[in-house]
């Protein structure tokens, strides 16, 4: 059951989007997300949704994967939707019952927020689906490099991220093993109330933490043995290159953004 967890959820492929420079992908995704919050008209939303849909088609990511990334946010969507409908009371009332009143503005707000959140999640998932975790951290390191001027430990941060990603599968496997071992000693992990279940986790969490610390210590030692001393003067095995494809992707995104913003000024009610 633990094996089913996917973090980093990279979906291997060779599409145009997979081959883009990860830095470009990160920046464009960020532009797209910011853009979502400038949209006020449904025409603009339509353009953004279609654009994202086309990107998914180009990347050859199946619809199933989009739905899977959206599943965890369904409760948040419902919750914010209800709050928006209840607390935005301006404009024409649509429905009134006692102290509960729902206005057209409220419904409008709820729908707009839902579209924004869905697009936001779908867009950032597209980034992680098409970019391997390693190139993501590489790109983040490169993008944050200017912060070095203010002594921000960019390289160390990126190294921490890649190590964390590297150890997720290891720790999942370890958890599996410890769970089996404790089950073999009669640990009951599947029944009882919340408190009992939380207590039953102790025999799993303690060995897991201990082994995580042990691994961390061993890794640190092994890195030091190989003279690792931070990012100073360190060269990279994989250099990031921007090409014509990246320029094309950037241009398309800018054009789409322009269209979406222009849609705000269209003399249309929606």
């Amino acid at each position, binding site marked *: 059951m633990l094996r089913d967890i996917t973090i980093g959820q990279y979906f291997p492929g060779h599409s145009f989007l997979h081959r883009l420079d990860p830095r470009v992908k990160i920046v464009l995704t960020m532009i797209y997300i910011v853009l979502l919050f400038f949209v006020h008209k449904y025409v603009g939303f339509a353009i953004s949704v279609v654009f994202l849909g086309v990107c998914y088609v180009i990347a050859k990511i199946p619809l199933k994967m989009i739905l899977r990334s959206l599943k965890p946010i369904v409760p948040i969507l419902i919750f914010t939707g209800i709050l928006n409908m209840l607390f935005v009371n301006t404009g024409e009332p649509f429905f009134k019952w006692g102290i509960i009143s729902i206005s057209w503005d409220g419904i409008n707000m709820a729908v707009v927020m839902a579209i924004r959140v869905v697009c936001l999640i779908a867009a950032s998932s597209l980034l992680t689906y098409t970019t391997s975790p390693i190139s993501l951290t590489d790109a983040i390191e490169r993008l944050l490099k200017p912060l070095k001027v203010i002594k921000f430990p960019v390289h160390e941060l990126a190294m921490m991220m890649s190590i964390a990603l590297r150890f997720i599968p290891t720790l999942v496997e370890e958890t599996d093993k410890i769970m089996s071992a404790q*089950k073999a000693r009669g640990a009951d992990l599947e029944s009882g109330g919340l408190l009992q279940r939380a207590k039953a986790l102790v*025999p799993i969490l303690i060995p897991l933490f201990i082994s995580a610390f042990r691994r961390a210590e061993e890794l640190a030692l092994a890195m030091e043995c190989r003279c690792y001393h931070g990012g100073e003067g360190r060269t990279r095995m994989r250099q990031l290159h921007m090409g014509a494809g990246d320029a094309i992707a950037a241009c398309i995104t800018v054009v789409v953004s322009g269209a979406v913003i222009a849609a705000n000024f269209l003399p249309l009610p929606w």
Partner: protein
Amino acid sequence: MMIKIENLTHKYSVGTPFEKVAVDHVNLEIEGGEIVGVIGHTGSGKSTLIQHLNGLLKPSEGKVYINGQDIWADKSKMRQVRFDVGLVFQYPEYQLFEETVYKDIAFGPRNMGLSESEIHDRVLKAAEFSGLREELLEKSPFELSGGQKRRVAIAGVIAMEPKVLILDEPTAGLDPKGRNKILNQIKNYHDQVGNTILLVSHSMEDVAMFADKVLVMNKAKVFAYDTVENVFARSEELKAIRLSVPQITNVFHRLNEEGYPVPRNVYTVAYAKRKLLAELEKEGKLHA
């Protein structure tokens, strides 16, 4: 306690490109009261097989019977199965978690719902079987040496007094002295309690010295299940699947081929020594 495995198949990652058959239509019957050595290459299905015996893995096909009872017939009895069939994993010292050695050994018996006095008795007995001195019981398991930790972990399973005890490479990563100590303790424990023991090992010497029977796994199937003598007598076949026989057996085969009057069925150093001395005595008398 009889173990019967019927047509057992286990597949990992079913329905993905990584699907792998780890145990392939295995049939096996293990009588009670013996030490069974389990040998085979890494990936031959040993670990997968033994995890079926206490229901940690569910068969993709086939049945596992413990004392005639299909263990998956009634899931509510699964915990009882796990108390009856104790399993010590590889590197079991990484499962220790309690504040004191005593409490860690008591974890299994406590899960069984025994009374405090019964738990106390069992912890002391298990500690003795595993060669842990009493003053260690109040220490934190994390203060102990590697070998001591391993013995605490083994004691934690022995304390459940399982009718079948399965040990997955209990000596992995220990020095020769520690290996022998643990194996001798397991043997002593077996002699006193008379339960069934399955001992997974990579060392043919250990298997020859301690086991009554040998189960050889190869490529997800049972290659052989017989007495130590009968299995190691098939040394050519074992070599064909790139497993070996005890080194001393190789030595005696070679001596035999060179024309010395020594038997071929020698599997332990102690037996070899007796045979050789007897042979030399005979020669001595002849020359005298």
